[in-house]
């Protein structure tokens, strides 16, 4: 695990604030470069060219013409606020950072920009709403398709307290174990590993312990200490343990994949 460059995808100002906070913290603790991006949706400009296009305010319901000038002004103001937020937070932690605002198709642009980075951070939704947060289409797309680890951050999370790595068998969970332990130390949180079957059963325990010892010769004891078992089908009981980050490997099978995990668990989830 090496994090030397992080990209954070921003959208609404209020929704992006917690993202910037965690991105800056991770960049600071890893001495990594941070790139904050705001993608100006290509379709906005396309639509604004139609003389019949109007915009209905989501707050008041009022209707106003949607011209290119309108869109441009709104984006400029919005981008300026996002930039201020990134600059202020980055300077406070003295990290290397850049802020970019670019026009294009959001998913495509983010996929392009993530190339060569170690971590992509994106919010679950433009406007997080309740604990069972909805998942934005962009976040879902990146969680499923982005080649680099994607941290889908629950914008409501504050005061992260623990990190849970969801493991299958030791061999297939090396990445999860590695990231969980390291992030725990990095963010000063309690780390734990959740195994989907009964680790207390003596024979299985012995086998698993031997395998862990082989894979992590120096950390076997620590890994066993922070391991806990849960019946595989009840993974979603985790939803009641808030203030935590879940680490999963996309290659492992969890229900019907990333979408299922995101819809069932309201936490921040790191997809490896």
């Amino acid at each position, binding site marked *: 695990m090496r994090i030397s460059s992080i990209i954070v995808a921003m959208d609404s100002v209020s929704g992006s604030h917690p993202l910037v906070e965690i991105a800056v913290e991770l960049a600071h603790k890893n001495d990594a470069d941070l790139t904050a991006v705001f993608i100006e949706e290509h379709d906005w400009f396309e*639509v604004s060219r*139609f003389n*019949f*296009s109007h915009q*209905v305010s989501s707050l*008041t319901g009022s209707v106003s013409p*949607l011209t290119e000038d309108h869109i441009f002004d709104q984006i400029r103001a919005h981008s300026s606020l996002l930039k201020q937020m990134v600059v202020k937070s980055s300077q406070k932690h003295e990290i290397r950072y850049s802020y970019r605002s670019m026009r294009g198709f959001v998913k495509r642009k983010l996929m392009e920009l993530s190339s060569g980075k170690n971590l992509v951070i994106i919010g679950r939704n433009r406007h997080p709403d309740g604990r069972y947060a909805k998942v934005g289409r962009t976040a879902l797309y990146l969680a499923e398709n982005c080649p680099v680890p994607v941290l889908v951050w629950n914008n409501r999370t504050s*005061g992260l307290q623990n990190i849970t790595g969801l493991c299958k068998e030791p061999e297939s969970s090396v990445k999860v174990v590695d990231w969980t332990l390291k992030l725990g130390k990095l963010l000063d949180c309690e780390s734990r590993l959740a195994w989907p079957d009964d680790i207390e059963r003596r024979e299985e325990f012995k086998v698993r312990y031997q395998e862990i010892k082989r894979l992590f010769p120096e950390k076997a004891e620590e890994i066993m200490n922070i391991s806990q078992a849960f019946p595989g089908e009840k993974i979603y009981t985790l939803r009641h343990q808030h203030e935590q980050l879940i680490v999963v490997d996309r290659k492992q099978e969890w229900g019907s994949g990333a979408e299922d995990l995101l819809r069932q668990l309201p936490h921040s989830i790191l997809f490896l």
Partner: protein
Amino acid sequence: MIENQKLTPEQLYRKCELGEIDFETTKDLSHNDYAFMGQNRALTSAGFGIKMKLDGYNIYALGPEEVDKRSLLETLINREAAELKVPGDWVYVCNFKEEQKPVALKMRAGDAVRLRDMMNRFAEELPNVLTSVFESEEYQNRRQSIEEKLKEKEQQDFNDIQKKAEEKGLSIMRTPMGYSFAPVKKGKVMSMDDIQKMSDREKEQLEEVVQELQKELQKILRQIPERQRKIRRKREELNREFAEYSVKGLLEEVRREFEYDEGVIKYLNDAKNDIIERVEEILNPGGGNPFMQAVSQKPKQNISPSEHPVLWRYTVNVMVNNSDLKGAPMVYEDHPIYNNLIGRIEHVSEMGALTTDFTYLKPGALHKANGGFLILDALRLLTQPYAWEGLKRALLSKKLKVEAPGEMYGLFSTVTLQPAPIDLDVKVVLVGSRMLYYLLCAYDEDFKNLFKAEVDFEEEIDRNTETQQMYAQLIASLIQKHDLNPMDRQAVAKIIEHTSRMVSDNQKMSIRTRDITDLLKEAEYWSREEGQDITGVESVMKAVEHRRYRSGRLKDRYRDEILRNTIFIDTEGTQTGQVNGLSVVALGNSMFGHPTRITARVRPGKGEVINIEREVEMSGPIHSKGILILSAYLGAQYAIDNPLSLSASLVFEQSYGGVDGDSASSTELYALLSAIGDIPIKQCYAVTGSVNQHGEIQPIGGVNEKIEGFFEICRWRGLTGGEGVIIPKANIKNLMLNDEILEAVKEDKFHIYAIETIDEGMKLLTGLEMGEQDEQGNYPKGSVNYAVKEKLNRFTSIQKQFMGKDNHSEVKKTER
């Protein structure tokens, strides 16, 4: 006759005979209850004041500072307080409806701390319990269900419009500020080229559809706030239901403990309702207010309830905790400033503003003494701003209301607390001087109504065998109380003798216990210095002597100036119109006597006696009165058939301060008679005593110091056997002279004469009889009266001659 006036050594000092009381040292004596010796009046009055339950019978203990009034009263009050029941505790709790007006609760003794601890535990557990309930699956599901049910319609409307849009070849797109409809083709937003390829009719239709859908969307969006309000209301109802469930269980334990206390039960109900209203704030302090969130952040995990932004409301401020008492409280407040008496409201600074709440209410001495006794030093109380007024107000209203003094006088305009007043039932005991008591009686109407129990402490008692024995026991009890070394029998007797000297009366003893205690301590110090375990008579004498030495600088300076003839005092030979008077100087701890030359000069005049001190305003009123009395004596004695044709002047020579008192009036009369009659006065005597209009000598104060002052001068100059002091006979009972004088008197080197009349004094001073009038009104030749009368007659003749000449001149002037 002179021999009759001369006092024997036995008359100069009264030895202490301890009679049949059998003890070697004070260890052998019982020491119970003798602290109240001689204080029968105070004891009875205090007993009445302490037991009297009616309003206004607070106590004022008056008497000299050196009588340990407070300690004696504390002993009595402790006895009474132990018999009384323990008063209840008092707490302040939050007034959930009006935070500025905290509620006072009276509880059983010991309950306050229990309630506080239970409520603290309750407040600590509350967030965890609420969290677990509000994170339970049931709550989450019901909340989700509410939100989903209410949002269902919104979602349905969105879906409908989305579907309608799709049917018309449109898609709803999010823009930075809201929504817009975009025409789509094969899942993508159409380009401008595509639009331009459309016919005018198609474009018109597209525009119409977009407008129509926009209106529908507008309608949907405008319904959102109302729906959100509905969701919020439903959510609040749900929160209340779950909060009540969780709080009820938690509070039940407290409720069971205090089910007998209506006040507590009502408070718990109010607290429950408040918690239900504030669940969101408890779980997410500062939530909804970005500014508060920024400053307060989320409280730490183990934050105490008193520091929590919301949970402090459920803490309990114990104002009075009587759990450790066995009876009624007795409190002595040694620093009776307003805040220490009435209590205070503390403030904390939060972002530049001073804030407070009920947890910052601090009790005063009145709170702690409520239901019992409060002892205060009257002078300290009266010299503290607002304290006396505050105390009176509390006693008159029988309510104790904590408020800032500034607020009381309307000085502050900031909002502060108005705590509910506490019922006050306290007996206040003021300890102070007599002067203060009489001043308060004279000038403070409330005082007389509030302090009706006057406890007047004696400062001296009669001295007889019985009281001396009791005094020995008092000394033993003081020695035990102050953990001093035991004292032997002779030392005890010496202390008793000294107490007579303290009050200048050999028939009385001082019961200024504080002074006695100091002397005992000092005597013990000197005995320890000598390596003794038992304090003996030498140590007592050394303590007395050392005390005199420590404060004797001024006395020694005075003596030196006399011996160096800077201050003129003759102690041998004779002088006309000059007598040695005796003065007393009292400064700080020092009181000493010294001789003063008093002289008189006479000439013909109109009968006036000029008091030179008075002319220059250095004479006090009593001294001036004495001069007028002796003038009256002269007139009555010598000017019955002739006018008193005399002009005389009297002065205290080398007196540069003021003079007051009439103890030198007899001396002044002797000087005057000597000056008039031109009769020499023996300078080996010093005289003291006041005189009345009949020529009788009246007693004076400070007789011992005066005699010792003159003796010391004579001793330093060398006693010849002729020196002595003439004192009023009425002062014999006051004599407690030092050993040196006793020794000199025994050896006939120094003499003390006690006289009753001016005639006796003149005879001693001049060696001449005063002389009795015969039937023709003449005095015998060679007598004082004869010489005086002769001189006065001469003055009258001279006066008449002058008067005649003056009248003659006037006639001549008229004739011309």
